[in-house]
Structures are given as C-alpha cells and as structure tokens.
C-alpha cells in the first residue's frame, strides 16, 4: 500500500474495506464444540444403554469428560499459537466458558454431597415401605446440567451470530424443562439430543466454514 493523497470518499472506502477485512479475518476452528458435542453425546448414550439394557461398565463413562479436558487444552494452545489477531469478545467468551466449566464441576460436587446425604433416607424408605421411590434426587440431576449447558451456548450463539448454536442452547433449556417430568433413562436421551444440537452440529458447521476460509484464518 503506497502513501498517496486521498479524497474523503476514498478514505471512507478504505476504512470500510479494512473493517470488513478485520471482521472476516478470524473463524472459530469448531474443534471445541465438536469435541464436547461428541463426548457428551457418547457419555449420555452409553449411560442410556446401561439403564435400558441393564448392564454396567467397570468405570464411570462420565470420566471421559475429565479426560476430554486434555485435548481441549491442546486445542486452545494450538489456536493461540496460530492466531495473529485477538477480537474484543474473545476475553468475554473465555470467561463465560471458564465459569461454565467451574459451575459444572461445582454442580457435580454439590450433587455428590446431596446424594450421599439423601441415600440413608431412601434406604429407610425402602426398609419401611418395601418398595423403591418412584423418583430419587438423581432423576432431577440432568435438569440442572441442561440448565447450565444452555447458558454459555446461548451467549456464544447469540454474540457470534451463530443461529444453530443459539437454537441448540434454547433446546437445552426446553430439554431441561422436559427432564423434570421424565426419568433418568429418558433424561439421557434428552442430554444426547441437546449435545448434538448445541455443540456437535454447530461444531460441524464451524469446522466447514473454517476449512473453507482457511487462508483467512491468520
């Protein structure tokens, strides 16, 4: 770009051209939503199978979500390395998803404590009535998770103007309401549906966009 005298119109054209270039210079790689969409879908469907076909794995399948943190960290570090520009909303998004991760960890911690405190009550119930209660606390746990899934998904989808993710987040909340009235088995299918719509499908869309515009992702 040479230094030359510009008219007012040329200046305005240059400004809008550069703003447009900056706006289109970065696309999400989609790897994060793809990873978490896949992991949560697998965990939910395996849990559903365990309930439906009455078998149990020698380990808790949800431990996959802890293991998935490792590739997630690698993805974040790799993206940081190749990124040559940082948007204003990236810091906010980092905070939103970090808060979400911490909230999920806290919810797991709270749930474990509630279950350990309520278990003796249920045991007493079974002892007195001779039958199992129709609903236990664990049958409502999914509702809390789906409630949390919806929050960062809607914020990200809305702020990034990514409609499939926005609607996926809304679906998480719809499934949250439904899961209040359904049992654990159906709850797992609702979780899988939410993960597919909120993260897996938007992740595929983002990945396709990213690969299509690969040279622009400087």
């Amino acid at each position: 770009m040479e230094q030359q005298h510009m008219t007012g119109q040329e200046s305005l054209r240059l400004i809008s051209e550069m703003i447009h270039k900056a706006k289109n210079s970065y696309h999400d790689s989609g790897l994060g939503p793809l990873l978490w969409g896949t992991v949560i879908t697998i965990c939910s469907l395996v849990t559903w199978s365990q309930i439906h076909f009455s078998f149990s794995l020698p380990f808790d399948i949800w431990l996959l979500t802890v293991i998935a943190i490792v590739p997630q960290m690698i993805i974040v570090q790799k993206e940081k390395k190749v990124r040559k520009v940082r948007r204003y909303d990236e810091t906010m998004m980092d905070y939103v998803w970090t808060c979400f991760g911490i909230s999920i960890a806290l919810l797991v911690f709270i749930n474990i404590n509630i279950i350990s405190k309520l278990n003796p009550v249920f045991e007493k119930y079974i002892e007195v009535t001779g039958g199992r209660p129709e609903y236990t606390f664990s049958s409502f746990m999914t509702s809390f998770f789906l409630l949390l899934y919806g929050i960062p998904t809607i914020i990200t989808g809305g702020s990034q103007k990514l409609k499939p993710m926005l609607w996926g987040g809304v679906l998480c909340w719809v499934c949250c309401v439904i899961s209040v009235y359904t049992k654990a088995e159906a709850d797992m299918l609702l979780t899988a549906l939410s993960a597919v719509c909120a993260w897996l499908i938007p992740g595929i869309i983002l990945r396709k966009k990213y690969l299509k515009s690969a040279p622009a992702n400087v």
Partner: protein
Amino acid sequence: MFKELDPILHSQLRLAVMSLLISVKEAEFVFLKEKTNSTAGNLSVQINKLKESGYIDVVKQFKDNYPQTICKVTPKGVDAFELYVKALQSYMNPSSNK
C-alpha cells in the same frame, strides 16, 4: 465550517492500520502487513508514527523464539479515529455543518 482532517490519520497506510486495529482488540504486525498488502519497512515506519502520536501501543516480545510485534489502539487513538470519521462525514455532507 469544515473540520480539519487529522494529518496523522489522513494517510492511506496509517488509516488502513487504524481501521484494522479499531475493529479488533489487538493484532500482530504480520496480520497488519497481510491485510494492508504493504512492505514490512513501510509498515514499520507508519506504525512508529502512530505510536509516537499515542494512537497505538506497540508491544515487542518473543513467541516460540521468534520476535512478535503486537499493536493495539489506545483510547486516544479511538478518539482521534472517531473525530477523523466525523470530519470526513462533514466533508461528504456539508449540510450537516450548518
């Protein structure tokens, strides 16, 4: 009465750099070079002028053993850019100056 155009911004490459930086939080020198299709030497000179005017902050550091220059628009730069655009608009629509 027409507003005077800021001579620091009324230069093609400096205006291009400011327009890019105003849209993002921060950008690397390489990014600015690619988007403005300028030479490293010319860009470096113009970036220095913007820095001396207090319109941008320039941070030089090392990333994976390679030098990295990060540019970021300052609040003074944002104000100057806004004033420049307003002045341009007043040239385009002289009736708005009455």
